[in-house]
């Protein structure tokens, strides 16, 4: 029995030795297979469904031009994503700036503060915001008792709530690329600028800020792309009234069972992100940005 297996294996093994490249291909085969079955195939199916259901043709795509509800939803998605990205960038920039200038001891604690939210489920975080943002929530109660406002602010079930939750989620993804970039800026350049006659703000604005821009661009792509396809937070804090594309797709597929429209929107999302990355990669080195050295 063993002898049989050995002889059967021999030519195969010899072939492997004679072609080192095949060996490498075989080693990566499980991963390639996994990607094909669980990634490429489903995405291919989605693309296929978007042009075949309910009947072959581009009918689903013409909806982009004709359906007012889809246009309104896409506009909402774009607006919220852009605003979230802008707010996140400003906050992330401030935090990163403080981080690079902090003493190592303080820096450790600050990092903990940045990273811990990443370990907490996005659901838990969305529900935590309920407690703070509700009409009878902590913030409204505090403001009312302090006499700053007369009627409770509506901080959730609307775009404000969605953006608060999203910005909170996105902050670490904004901070990390910006911080990584700022850390590599030569501090002597700032000292040199001061020595050459620039006031502190001028040294920041003319030297530090331009040098930190690659990090800002990287962070903005990351945050914007995440924002576009964000699901849990808009669904919970938007209360069904602020509809973004991910939730819209879910409703199309699971509730009204219009697979064609759902898959068309998913395809659009994929294309938009692809185009965005292609455009940005002409300006900045994406591989370096996302840590591939």
């Amino acid at each position, binding site marked *: 029995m063993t002898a049989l297996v050995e002889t059967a294996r021999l030519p195969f093994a010899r072939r492997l030795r004679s072609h080192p490249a095949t060996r490498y291909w075989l080693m990566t085969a499980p991963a390639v297979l996994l990607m094909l079955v669980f990634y490429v195939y489903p995405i291919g199916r989605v693309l296929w469904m978007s042009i075949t259901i309910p009947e072959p043709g581009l009918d689903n795509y013409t909806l982009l031009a004709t359906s007012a509800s889809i246009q309104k939803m896409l506009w909402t998605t774009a607006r919220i994503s852009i605003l979230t990205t802008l707010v996140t960038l400003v906050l992330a920039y401030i935090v990163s700036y403080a981080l690079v200038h902090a003493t190592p001891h303080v820096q450790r604690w600050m990092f903990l503060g940045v990273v811990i939210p990443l370990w907490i489920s996005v659901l838990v975080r969305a529900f935590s915001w309920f407690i703070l943002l509700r009409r009878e929530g902590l913030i409204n109660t505090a403001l009312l008792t302090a006499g700053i406002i007369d009627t409770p602010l509506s901080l959730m079930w609307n775009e404000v709530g969605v953006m608060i939750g999203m910005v909170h989620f996105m902050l670490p993804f904004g901070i990390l690329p910006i911080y990584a970039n700022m850390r590599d800026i030569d501090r*002597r350049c700032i000292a040199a600028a001061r*020595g*050459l*006659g620039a006031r502190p703000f001028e040294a920041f604005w003319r030297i530090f800020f331009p040098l930190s821009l690659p990090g800002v661009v990287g962070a903005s792509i990351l945050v914007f792309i995440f924002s576009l396809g964000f699901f849990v937070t808009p669904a919970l804090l938007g209360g069904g009234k602020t509809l973004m594309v991910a939730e819209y797709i879910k409703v199309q597929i699971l509730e009204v069972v219009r697979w064609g429209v759902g898959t068309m929107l998913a395809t659009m999302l994929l294309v938009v992100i692809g185009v965005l990355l292609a455009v940005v990669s002409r300006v900045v080195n994406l591989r370096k940005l996302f840590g591939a050295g």
Partner: protein
Amino acid sequence: MSVSEGHRNLNITGVEKRFGSFKAVDNVSLTVERGEFLTLLGPSGSGKTTLLMMIAGFVQPDKGSIALGAEQITHLPPERRDFGMVFQGYALFPHLSVFDNVAFPLKVRKKPRAEIEERVRSALDLVQLTAQMDRLPRQLSGGQQQRVALARAMVFTPHLLLLDEPLSALDKKLRAELQEELKRLHRKVGLTFIYVTHDQDEALSMSDRIAIMRDGQLIQHGSPAELYENPSTAFVADFLGKSNFLRGRVETHAGDDIVFTSGRGRFRQRISGAKRPPVGSEIAIALRPEKISIVPPGTEMANTLTGTVTEWNYFGSEFRLVVSTQSFGSVAVAIPTWKSGVPPEIGQSLTLGWDAQAGMQVAES
């Protein structure tokens, strides 16, 4: 920009800086004359860079004051001092072209565009980089970057120019070239240069005056020749050039000389006047290797000493020997090659000789 009304002296009075319990600069007073090339020389950790940073305004002294002419600048922020500075590693702005790097000090001073253009061009002309105007710093060689840093530091006609080890990143040959260029530039623009280095050869060849620092203190300052010929302490004698230290006890005074003994030997040293040590006291004499010669045995000379060669090295222009002696242990000797006669050999015994005026009395420490 405050128009610099000629260049003024820089007066440093009793400045002190502590970092925690570490005294980086300890009660240093120094006047830098206008137009002079002053070098702060010392080993790393001697406080020379901290002193420069206090002059530049990046570090605040805990005590003492710094004044430019009659104007107190001790607590003035760096951007209001109008001092040009060349940093170690140059600190060129990587995102700006050579032109924009040099234009930076003029832009922050809100100069009109035409004036900026003209002054940047003439500054780049001075360092011969007009052709590389549109390049980015990373497209330049180390020597070119250094010259951009210089042009940038001088373009706004600062009161003085501070240079923090500007040549330390360059290879030996380029260094020598740029030393020449810096000296030429200094003569040409007549600006006060304060130059920090740990390289004694650089200090000796470039400076009008050297201030030697150690452990935060200013040990001695003076012209290179003064320091080389009359070091006040054993540290200075050894740091500026190499020295042998002959330690012994004063036996008698003989005319202008003193006679001191060490081991079985008796030696003469010219010390007259107030500095003459009393009979019986311990003294240290610094003796440069090049002031010792090899003499035939039995030569009549103020000082002779026999020993055996334990080490020798050929340096093209000179031989450097280490000779083991009974009185002073190992003695370093430098002999011009053309004078040496026979090539020395390890184990060979020979007689060394030097004049009574050859040594210099130094304080210990």
